[in-house]
């Protein structure tokens, strides 16, 4: 063996040991890590919370940043949080039906029932971003970002699926026919995301992006059709009474991507900016008829990788206030 070959074998051996050692050590760490602290007597704790008005949300779990733990907490005592064994990247719950998107870092999801037990799995490859369940619990909407391939790309594409929670049947929003001012429009650059369901069966609002513009669309899942309502509206969230929409509006003069929360009154068409000056990249959840909840990265100080939920009055009567620390992806549940 020449000296060069010997040197190469030594270098490769060293690097191989380093790689194998690090991976092995990580595997041991992951395997021996304490599972998310399941509250003692969880069955009773969970049942107690599920019986009163509560919040279903995700708690970042730490070890795997793509997996957060589904948790619940009573609205009148948010500190009494109860963790479940369910994990994913984005969750929502309504009328006894839940959806968890991002089963793994590569995508996929599952539904869960009223006692927060895992039910049916479904496939949807991509980066999980939005999830919603209709107020009647019949349908779930899930959005992922799909990339051209593994590289970081300037070209992103979204895929939004509506799942019938009773049958498991799925339909892609791109199969819907869309009209603008009465004329059918059809483009290959259609991207849909951020569905919010109305209380009327089959009705929903969502975002459509095409031709460099985003539109608020109103759609119908029965006729598989939608029409555009307004421009520059993203991630709409319909108020419980169905009269207002809070959405994020892209600030065009900042160069980068920053959004302001706005509210649109569907009866009058009046649009107003909400009293949150920070950029919000989330689909808000209505706490009640006058307040919304949304997640923001923890700004500290010092800033951390945690996420907190904030509460904001939509009439501008109060500044945003921290609602719940170490929480994201909120769903407000008020048992009848």
């Amino acid at each position, binding site marked *: 063996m020449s000296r*060069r070959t010997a*040197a*190469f074998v030594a*270098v*490769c051996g060293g*690097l*191989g040991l*380093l*790689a194998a050692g*690090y*991976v092995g050590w*990580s*595997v041991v760490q*992951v395997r021996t890590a304490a599972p998310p602290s399941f509250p003692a007597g969880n069955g009773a704790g969970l049942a107690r919370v599920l019986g009163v008005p509560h919040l279903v949300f995700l708690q970042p779990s730490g*070890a*795997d*940043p*793509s*997996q957060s733990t589904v948790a619940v907490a009573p609205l009148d005592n948010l500190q009494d949080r109860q963790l479940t064994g369910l994990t994913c*990247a984005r969750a929502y719950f309504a009328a006894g039906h839940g959806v968890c998107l991002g089963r*793994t*870092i*590569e*995508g996929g999801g599952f539904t869960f029932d009223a006692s927060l037990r895992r039910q049916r799995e479904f*496939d*949807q*490859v*991509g*980066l999980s971003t939005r999830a919603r369940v209709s107020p009647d619990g019949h349908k779930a909407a899930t959005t992922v*970002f*799909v*990339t*051209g*391939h*593994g*590289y*970081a*790309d*300037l*070209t*992103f*594409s979204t*895929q939004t699926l509506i799942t019938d929670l009773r049958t498991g049947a799925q339909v892609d929003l791109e199969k819907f026919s869309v009209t603008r001012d009465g004329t059918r429009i059809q*483009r*290959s*650059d259609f991207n849909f995301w951020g569905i919010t369901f109305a209380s009327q069966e089959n009705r929903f609002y969502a975002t459509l992006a*095409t*031709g*460099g513009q985003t539109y608020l669309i109103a759609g119908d899942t029965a006729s598989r059709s939608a029409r555009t309502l307004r421009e520059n509206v993203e991630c709409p969230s319909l108020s419980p009474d169905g009269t207002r929409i809070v959405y994020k509006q892209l600030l065009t003069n900042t160069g*980068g*991507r920053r959004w302001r929360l706005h509210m649109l009154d569907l009866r009058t068409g009046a649009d107003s900016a909400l009293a949150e000056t920070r950029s919000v*990249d989330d689909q808000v959840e209505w706490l009640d008829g006058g307040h919304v909840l949304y997640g923001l*990265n923890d700004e500290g100080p010092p800033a951390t*990788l945690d*996420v907190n939920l904030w509460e904001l009055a939509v009439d501008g009567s109060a500044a945003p206030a921290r609602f719940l620390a170490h929480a994201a992806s909120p769903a407000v549940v008020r048992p009848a």
Partner: protein
Amino acid sequence: MYTQLRANLGLAAKTGDRGKRTPWRVSRNVVNLGLTSLFTDISAEMVNTILPLYLVFYLRTSLVQVGLVDGLYQGVTALVSLGAGTLADRRGRYKEVALAGYGISAVGKLGLLAVGAMFAPLAGVVVADRVGKGIRTAPRDTLISLSTPPERLGSAFGVHRALDTAGALLGPLVAFGLLRLLPGRFDAIFVVSFCFAAVGVAVLVLFVEGRRSEAAREGLQASWRQALALLRRPRLMVLVAGSAILALATISDAFIYLLLQRRTGFNPGFLPLLYVATATSYLVLAIPLGRLADRVGRGRIVVAGYLLLALAYVALLTSAGGAGLFVACLLVLGAYYAATDGVMAALTSAATPVENRTTGLALHGTAVGLAQLGGSVFFGLLWTVAGADFAITVFLALLLVGIAGLSAGLARTASR
């Protein structure tokens, strides 16, 4: 001209040495450079594959910022390569300059581990990685050309590109394998990625001969003036300008895959497989097409490659949505890469005097890189404003103009 001839003859004699040949009938040095690229590409593609996931899930940045990082990526690469190329020519130290490039990228993998959760330093490490790529490409291609007799340049670049593509194919597999084993442990991916990069650097340091050109050895060092004189070489200018127009007319893979998905409506979850299919086809065809180029003429193969790309555009425009068309499109795309990438490097090497070769290759690379960036922005703009069909039609027209220009220019400047 005289020095170039002598340099090439001298090396041809050396590489004629039977003991130094490999099964592909190219010099051992070319294979070793290919192995360096293979390990480096495994390392680079591991990180590229998971970077969007890392940014979104770990740093909680929005995807638009991810796009921003990617834009930085490409612009920087193009610019540093020219400076590094001229430096390598002036000193005749191709291996050392290439090593600096490979080294920066390898160390950058440890940098990813160190900067952790901060966005700005992370973007800095990503840019440093691209700077490394910008520095190493031209001197490495110069070494390939100096290790190969002129009549076998196509084969040599084919072998190198095949090994390089194999690395690009393996990288994402290793990354996703690790992610399955260790969900969310990006640090393990960075460490393993560093190890692959370090093996690549070890191959370069221990086994690649840093050939100084005859010109450099005789003290005929390249001056800036000589570098500028490259601009007066008709054949090189035909290659640079022609490649730039063709790069401008190239629709990026990501767009093509997205178009195919929209046209045929297959599950977007299969998009990564399109990348695998294209790369496999490139991998398989790189060596045969490189050898064919040496036999029938490199210009012809490059022109044929771009005609294949034009064919893919036509298929996209007339898509009936059949599975056959779909598979054909991917094979054609791989064949296009195999017929143009390495063969173009061979053409450019042959058209540049040995004392300025790195600068010439870097000039070509820079023009192509910037044109690609412009083309991708232009295509996105056309697509959003006027629709996909219009955008493809405009790019098809531009591509045909580029093909006609390149083929006429090559015919006019042919050495014989």
